[in-house]
């Protein structure tokens, strides 16, 4: 297993946000965590990437426990996060944002090459490479956030709500890119409210409710599950 999360508990002060959650991500997979607002999805991602600390439980990445490591060390071991709400550096240019993504790397030639690669994957970003990132549209900012995370050459990419606030057409585009990134060999852990879309690109899924895993399985099985349909996909109850 590339990533295995074993019964973690995360608190915000007294609020028990994540209860005994366990799941696994194998190399090459796309795994999605779906659930409504407040289910604890973002909290889980932030705990994995080291921004939050779990009160108990372990998170193993490539067999090594990482739950007590600081965020910058976790990133160095090949795990990059695209934070919720994109969080690009609005006053830096597109190019500078991408260079910041490669902050932990020291191979100049590799960085230049990857910069070219991300421009060919996101031609829109190349057109705007010298613009301040704050002037980009929402979809472009999301692309930039993904491109920035990829600049660190992650083995595992954590995506937090990439469809948030985007038009349906752009959402399609973003999910096409996610599939594309996965086909290039990057494992993806995707957190989404848009369950249908998330399950359509994922191999497996976990369904969360108020901090607990209530169901898990193959994406195709979950897509047709009556209970999921009723709760998240807007099917007939």
């Amino acid at each position, binding site marked *: 297993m590339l990533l295995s999360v074993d019964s973690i508990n995360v608190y915000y002060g007294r609020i028990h946000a994540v209860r005994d959650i366990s799941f696994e991500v194998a190399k090459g997979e796309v795994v999605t965590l779906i659930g409504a607002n407040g289910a604890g999805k973002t909290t889980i991602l932030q705990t994995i*990437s*080291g*921004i939050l600390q779990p009160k108990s439980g372990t998170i193993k990445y490539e067999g090594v426990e990482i739950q007590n490591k*600081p*965020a*910058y060390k976790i*990133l*160095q071991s090949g795990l*990059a*996060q*695209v*934070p919720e709400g994109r*969080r*690009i*550096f*609005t*006053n*830096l240019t597109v190019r*500078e944002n991408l*260079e*910041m*993504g490669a*902050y*932990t790397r020291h191979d100049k030639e590799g960085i230049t090459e990857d910069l070219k690669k991300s421009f060919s994957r996101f031609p829109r970003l190349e057109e705007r490479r010298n613009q301040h990132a704050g002037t980009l549209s929402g979809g472009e900012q999301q692309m930039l956030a993904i491109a*920035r*995370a990829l600049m*660190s050459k992650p083995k595992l990419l954590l995506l937090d709500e990439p469809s948030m606030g985007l038009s349906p057409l752009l959402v399609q585009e973003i999910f096409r890119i996610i599939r594309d990134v996965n086909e290039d060999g990057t494992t993806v852990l995707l957190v989404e409210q848009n369950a249908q879309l998330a399950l359509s690109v994922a191999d497996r899924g976990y369904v969360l409710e108020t901090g607990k895993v209530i169901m898990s399985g193959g994406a195709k099985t979950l897509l047709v599950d009556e209970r999921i349909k009723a709760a998240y996909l807007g099917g007939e109850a």
Partner: protein
Amino acid sequence: MKKSSSRVFKTYVLNIVIIAAIFIALQLMITNGVFNSYTSGLVVQIFINMILTLSLNVATGFLGELCLGHAGFMAIGAYTTALLTINSGLPVMIMFPLGLIAGMIISGIIGFLVGVPALRLKGDYLAIITLAFGEMISILLRTFKFTGGALGLNGIPRVTSFAYSYWCFIISLVLIITFMFSRHGRAILSIREDEIASEATGVNTFKYKMIAFVMSAMFAGLAGGLFAHFQGNLAPEKFNYNYSIDIMVMVVFGGMGSVSGSIVSAIILTLLPELLRGFSEFRMLVYAIMLIVLMIFRPEGMFGRKEVTYRVFRRFLKRNKQNKPVS
């Protein structure tokens, strides 16, 4: 994409020529009496204020943390340097540069100690802690015997010449620019932009906040040491809250995060109160009104985050050339 090395070399030479030319020009004006002693004193003060403004700009402009106790760090540098030159027994000309370095180091250490708790906090909380720190320093200096108590220190050798202030400024400027426009500087900028995103790209945010904060304290200490030996005496009241605010005003006026802005605003805001002496008692009122007007029309400060570089000049020249046939 790569800058040709000959152009880089040319830029270096040009920089050195300009730095030397400004020095020689000002030095000649001072020695030949074009500037009277009042004016040359003002020149020294401007250079000291430039170091101060630059140093605060590192913490407030580049890192983006509001620090309201900068005068405290300056005071530590000032007293350290002065106490060393007065008490060491070594000739002043040897002790003074050593004292300046010692002042920087002690300021840096205190900066580190304040930073450990303060940098875990953000925004308003950090502002309040630094504010309290500044006041504490001013009170401690008044209490301790070895700092001369409320009387302060007198009879400090007045050895801060124009040359000293100028070269200290140049050294600070070069160090701050090279650091801020390096990979490390970019890391500090990214913290200002968005701390979570910065952490998500792998920046050790606490370490870089500390580096910026300590750097800021060290250069403030340097400015303090120069100030002490320019004035010849130190009074603890000088380094109170108001003085910290004065420095903050210079940073905001010039533009948070702009080196060029800090330099220009330190010049203007040091000269302005002097030039306004004609208004006599209304002087500070006019000064305040001018600040308010600037903040209304240019809230980002004179320069915002922009810098004056050779590239800007080249572009400007090119544009003028292109415009000529038309006009």
